[in-house]
């Protein structure tokens, strides 16, 4: 497929998006995120893929929803790379996995547990799903600058939401519990559903990806339902990357 043609699922062509793309799961979050850009314009909406493009510090940036899960996220990233995007930040909510975490704390994802079925269509399971370190530190520096508490760490990317939140009713309950406990023991900080595919596909295409999640600790109240801290941090991280790229800085 030619880059000047509309991509099959996201219904975008070269020029419709910037190099820099934020990737929420929920199409409903695209517009609130785009409102943080200058001159936001809705570019396309097809299936779970909604796209807005605007600018930050004069640089074209976009937000594209991936839908839930690695299968649809992998399609979004593949098609966005075909039309010129090369820097991705996954942004969304996740379950907290460490007992000393708290609702509202931000997780800057360094790597992901490939607890999903999509990435094994790309690379054997031994290959690590890692974020780009420059994107990781752009996010960490943004959180630090804005004064939002955050931690760096590994995320579990799972294929089954209800397998995580209601494991006991699954025929595989015992295995789900055992693996969850192992991931916690390994230090995983957050549980979400798309990072592993975004990271592995980005490695293969030699593009940059990272992720920032707002954590929610089971049984606690939501303190920032509009996620201003999360979205503000993601946008500030894009500004950091745009600044460093313009300066031609090689990391670190």
């Amino acid at each position: 497929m030619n880059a000047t043609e509309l991509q099959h699922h996201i219904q975008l062509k070269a020029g419709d998006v910037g190099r820099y793309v934020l990737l929420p799961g929920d199409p409903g979050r695209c517009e609130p995120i785009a409102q943080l850009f200058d001159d936001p314009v809705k570019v396309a909406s097809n299936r779970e893929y909604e796209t807005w493009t605007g600018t930050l510090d004069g640089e074209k940036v976009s937000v594209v929803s991936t839908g839930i899960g690695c299968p649809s996220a992998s399609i979004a990233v593949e098609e966005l790379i075909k039309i010129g995007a090369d820097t991705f930040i996954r942004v969304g909510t996740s379950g907290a996995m460490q007992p000393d975490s708290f609702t509202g704390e931000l997780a800057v994802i360094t790597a992901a547990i490939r607890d999903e079925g999509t990435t094994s269509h790309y690379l054997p399971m031994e290959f690590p799903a890692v974020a780009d370190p420059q994107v990781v530190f752009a996010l960490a520096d943004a959180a630090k600058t804005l004064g939002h508490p955050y931690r760096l760490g590994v995320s579990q990317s799972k294929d089954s939401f209800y397998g995580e939140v209601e494991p006991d009713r699954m025929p595989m309950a015992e295995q789900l519990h055992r693996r969850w406990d192992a991931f916690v023991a390994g230090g995983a900080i957050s549980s979400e559903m798309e990072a592993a595919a975004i990271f592995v596909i980005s490695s293969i295409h030699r593009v940059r990806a990272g992720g920032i999640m707002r954590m929610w600790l089971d049984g606690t109240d939501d303190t920032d339902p509009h996620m201003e801290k999360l979205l503000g941090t993601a946008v500030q991280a894009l500004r950091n990357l745009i600044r460093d790229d313009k300066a031609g800085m090689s990391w670190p």
Partner: protein
Amino acid sequence: MNVTERQHHIGVARGEVGRYVFLPGDPGRCEPIARLFDDPKLVAKNREYETWTGYLDGEMVSVTSTGIGCPSAAIAMEELVKVGADTFVRVGTSGAMQPDIRVGDLGVIQGAIRDEGTSSHYLPMEFPAVADLELTRALAIGARSTGKTVHIGISQSKDSFYGQHEPGRMPVAARLQERWHAWMAGGAICSEMEAAALYIVAATLRVRAGGIMKIFGHWDQAPMTEEELAQEGLGDLLAAAIAGMREMIAQDRAAVAK
């Protein structure tokens, strides 16, 4: 086992090593690394594990050889953590896995392919073997300070040296070659034999690990030229590793001061 006792394999007791430890594979590389410390002393020597301790910027640091491969490397890290170490820098040589990576370049290992049998005794294979990124950043800063070309990326941690270097003679040749090509397509930068276990064990013990490698070997297994073989000296690598550890020590001190 009591921490005041000597550890079973490495023969080291608490107080004999610093928080910060360099991990070469080869025991023969311990002394040359220790010579870059202030006041280096040989602490213990047992099997493939040799340990020296000295100081960098007034901080106690050590070097312990791991031997070749993840099984012996995991033992070294487990026992070093028991006696108080918490920051580990793997240092060694590795083969290039991309055409644009040259003999003599430096590689900073951000994550490792778990192409080995040890780390699955700790965590399911889906779990990524990832370096501590603050330490990775410090090592990248150290590497850049040498003026060498620096690559930051993923290494293949394999269990079989000859399976990589002479895959054609292995009964599972087709699988070895197919997987090697997949790792390259995924962007792996170099091939070595210990990082995956060190990173996974470190994750489970909540300690920090990173790795810095000198590229010594071509991505296509082409023999090295005389000129390339003459670059065997590890001066650049060790200078980079020491500079990276100093950077980490400085960052830790700044964090405490805050």
